[in-house]
């Protein structure tokens, strides 16, 4: 089984979010980058398929040379090889078109991409890949088993979960649940050393137009200070919630 894991290179979840250039660009100054958490759950599940079922795992990212450390980290965690598509990921559709091309050329059986990235939160790339390729698609996937060309997946639904069956080739929008937090791997020294010698192929993008563009960013308005209520006067809290906030 050939697996492709799509990796987004995103600011660490503790990053302070600021903008520059007239609020038109994300300020990368002092920001640490990580593998998008939803992608890392998918990558770890892919490594499980590699170890248990002999799958070959390729990781791919659309981005400039500055995103290579994130791909190297994925290699250190255990991916067999990496591909970087040398382009600025302008919007979800552009990224999906690039990835669809890699999937067509590489003949992957299973593609796992995080259901959304923690920077733009578009939540569209896996679905758009499936739309472009006409492949089977399971989003918000929290469990995945593959037997030959048959797959059984569990997806999260509002208020519960749903079990589905489908066949490869399959696109999966992954999240926590594909593996648990405790299953995530921190690269060890051996992994980091081997990662240096693994193939990282750089491909030029195919011609594709973006459908949307991010014009501007805004930070939420500063909040007024919290109103503290004494624990001995909870009637006041109820009154504030009822009369002022009007939420109960």
């Amino acid at each position, binding site marked *: 089984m050939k697996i492709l894991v799509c990796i987004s290179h995103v600011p660490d979840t503790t990053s302070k979010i600021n903008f520059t250039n007239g609020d038109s660009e994300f300020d990368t100054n002092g920001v640490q980058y990580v593998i998008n958490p939803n992608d890392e759950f998918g990558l770890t599940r892919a490594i499980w398929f590699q170890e248990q079922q002999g799958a070959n795992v390729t990781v791919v990212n659309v981005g400039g040379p500055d995103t290579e450390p994130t791909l190297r980290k994925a290699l250190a965690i255990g991916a067999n090889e990496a591909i970087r598509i040398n382009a600025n990921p302008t919007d979800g559709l552009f990224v999906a078109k690039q990835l669809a091309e890699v999937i067509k050329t590489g003949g992957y059986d299973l593609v796992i991409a995080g259901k959304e990235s923690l920077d733009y939160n578009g939540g569209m790339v896996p679905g758009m890949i499936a739309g472009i390729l006409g492949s089977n698609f399971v989003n918000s996937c929290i469990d995945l088993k593959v037997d030959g060309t048959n797959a059984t997946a569990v997806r999260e639904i*509002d208020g519960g979960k749903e*079990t589905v069956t489908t066949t490869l080739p399959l696109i999966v929008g992954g999240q926590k649940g594909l593996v648990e937090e405790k299953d995530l791997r921190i690269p060890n020294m051996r992994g980091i050393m081997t990662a240096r010698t693994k193939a990282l192929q750089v491909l030029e993008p195919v011609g594709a137009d973006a459908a949307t563009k991010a014009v501007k960013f805004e930070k939420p308005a500063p909040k007024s200070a919290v109103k503290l209520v004494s624990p001995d006067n909870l009637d006041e809290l109820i009154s504030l919630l009822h009369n002022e906030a009007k939420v109960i």
Partner: protein
Amino acid sequence: MSILIYAESAEGKFKKVAFELASYAKKIAESTGTTVTALTINAGDVSELGKYGVDKVLKVNNDKLANFTAKAYADAIKQAAEKEGAKIVILSSTTDSLYTAPLVAVSLNAGYASNVVALPLSTSPFQVKRNAFSNKAFNITQIDTDVKVLAIGKNSFGLVESNGAAAAEDFAPSISDADFGVKVQSVEKGSGKVTIADADVVVSGGRGLKGPENWGMIEELAAVLGAATACSKPVSDLGWRPHSEHVGQTGKPVATNLYIAIGISGAIQHIAGVNSSKVKVAINSDPEAPFFKVADYGVVGDAFQVVPALIEKLKAFKAQNS
């Protein structure tokens, strides 16, 4: 040309988001001089949609669509959009709608913006404000394609009634076997419990509650308020509560009217995930807990005393006000 909404229903009854979408679409329709069409799939009585501004309903009744299937639903939405010549197609942010929306966008060659939190800032060029960076910022996105697909963020637009009546019409999109490459085998759904996705109020507990045995009071407080229960990431990692209750940046996002954080210090990732909630209350014994910086109301006190007292007072309040 009209605006198409997908009015979601469950067991034949419309979800609240269906009316929110209708209200949202009506506002755009009024400012651009067009009408609102709603697509319904296996819904019962559709007349209620008119109350929120829908002019026309395309009613699909098809047993094949009894279970939500992303591709088949996307196909139905696409055909409805083409039939109506819709330039704007609007979906909600339920798990199902977010699943199907990118498929709809690709099939209509449309640009797609999710997490939209307000009416379009302008319709030419078409620009919308959306949540990004896990609620730490807003992003103004411009959609340049002829057809636009939007997913409206949870609870970001209220209900607006208008005195319309919707004309209903049966609609039979052609659904092919190729739409069922993913087959639903079974659905597990907690019954009778309010889900985080649907709740107007969420009561959430953190490590300050010391152990899973102390969740009784959280559930009781939730029951009094008709709320869903949730928890912080450490609590779900420790296995005190199921993962499905984990809210925050890597868990479920919460955008509710009232979010009550009990014994949750407020890690930046937790706050990012719940910050879109309209009113936030913190109950914590540590006055320095970061959650107090983002809360609207706070009680500095021991949760084991405050919560039971609050439950009693709320019961009395509810008894008086019902």
